[in-house]
C-alpha cells in the first residue's frame, strides 16, 4: 500500500488526520505517565549520593530534552515553510511553540528545585542554566512576534526567521556542560553509553516517551484550531463548522 504524503500536506486532509489521531496519542501519554511515575517512585532505588532528591530527574531531564527537541522540530517546520512556502508548515511551527515554552519552563523550575538542595542555590548564572533561560525567551519572543503581526502570511515568515536564527542556541545548550566549566552536571546519557542505573534510565525514558506523545496530542489539537482559523473561507471549513 502506498501512502500519498502530498495529500496530507494539504491542511484539509491533515485536519482529518489530526482529529482522528490526537485522542490515541493523548491516551498513550496518560498510560505511559502512570507507568513512568510508578517506576520513578516505587521501582527506582534511592540514589547513593543524592538520596531521594534525585527523583526530580524523572521530569527534569525529559522536560529539558523536550524543550530542545520541540525547538528543533519547530525550526525545521519554519525552514520548510520559508523554503517551499507551504501553509501547513507554518501552522505546525505555530502549534509547537507554546508546548515547547511550557517544557522549557518546567525544565527551569524543576532545575531550581533540584539545584537548591544539591548546590544550595535556586539559580546560578552558569552556561547551561543561562542558555536554557534564553531558550524560554526565544519561545516567548517568537510567539509574541506571531501574535503581533496581523497579516498571517507576513507573521508566519517573521516568526519563522526568528525561530531559525534562534536555533543556534540549541547546540549551545546541549554542549554547554562540555564547553564551559559549569556547575550543572554533564550528560548522564552519551552516545558512548550511560552512567545511570538501568531502572532509573528506564523510568526516565518512559517519562520522555510520555512527554513526546503528550506533545503530539496537544500540538494536533492546537493545529486543528489554527487550520480552522486560517482556512475559514474554504468550503470544507464551512462544512466542518456547520457540523460542529
Amino acid at each position, binding site marked *: 500500500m502506498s501512502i500519498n504524503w502530498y495529500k496530507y500536506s494539504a491542511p484539509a486532509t491533515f485536519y482529518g488526520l489530526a482529529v482522528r489521531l490526537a485522542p490515541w496519542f493523548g491516551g498513550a501519554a496518560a498510560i505511559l505517565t502512570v507507568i513512568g511515575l510508578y517506576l520513578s517512585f516505587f521501582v527506582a532505588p534511592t540514589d547513593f549520593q543524592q538520596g531521594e*532528591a534525585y527523583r526530580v530527574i524523572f*521530569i527534569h531531564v525529559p522536560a529539558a530534552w523536550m524543550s530542545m527537541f520541540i525547538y528543533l522540530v519547530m525550526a525545521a517546520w519554519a525552514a520548510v515553510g520559508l523554503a517551499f512556502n507551504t501553509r501547513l508548515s507554518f501552522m505546525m511551527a505555530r502549534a509547537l511553540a*507554546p508546548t515547547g515554552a*511550557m517544557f522549557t519552563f518546567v525544565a527551569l523550575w524543576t532545575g531550581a*528545585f*533540584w539545584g537548591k538542595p544539591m548546590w544550595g542555590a535556586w539559580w546560578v548564572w552558569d552556561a547551561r542554566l543561562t542558555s536554557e533561560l534564553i531558550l524560554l525567551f526565544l519561545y516567548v519572543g517568537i510567539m509574541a512576534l506571531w501574535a503581533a503581526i496581523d497579516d498571517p502570511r507576513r507573521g508566519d515568515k517573521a516568526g519563522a526567521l526568528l525561530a531559525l536564527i534562534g536555533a543556534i542556541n540549541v547546540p549551545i545548550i546541549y554542549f554547554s556542560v562540555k564547553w564551559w566549566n559549569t556547575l550543572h552536571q554533564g550528560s548522564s546519557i552519551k552516545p558512548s553509553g550511560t552512567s545511570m542505573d538501568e531502572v532509573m534510565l528506564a523510568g526516565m525514558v518512559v517519562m520522555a516517551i510520555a512527554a513526546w506523545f503528550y506533545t503530539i496530542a496537544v500540538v494536533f489539537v*492546537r493545529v486543528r484550531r489554527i487550520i*480552522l482559523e486560517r482556512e*475559514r473561507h474554504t468550503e470544507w*471549513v464551512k462544512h466542518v463548522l456547520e457540523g460542529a
Partner: protein
Amino acid sequence: MMEWGSWSAFWAMGGYGLYVWGSFAMTALAIAVEVVQLRQAGRQTLQQLKRLNKWESE
C-alpha cells in the same frame, strides 16, 4: 508501599519532600493549565468562526 514503609515516609522523600513534590506539582499544574487553555480556546474559536461565517453569508 514497598520500599517506603509508610505514606508519611513517602511524602517526606527522605527530607527532600519540598523539592521533589514542588517539582512534580508544578509540572502537573503546567500541563493542566495548557490542556484547559487549549480546550477553552478551541471552543471559543469554533463559536467565533461560526458567527463570522454566518455574518458574512448574510
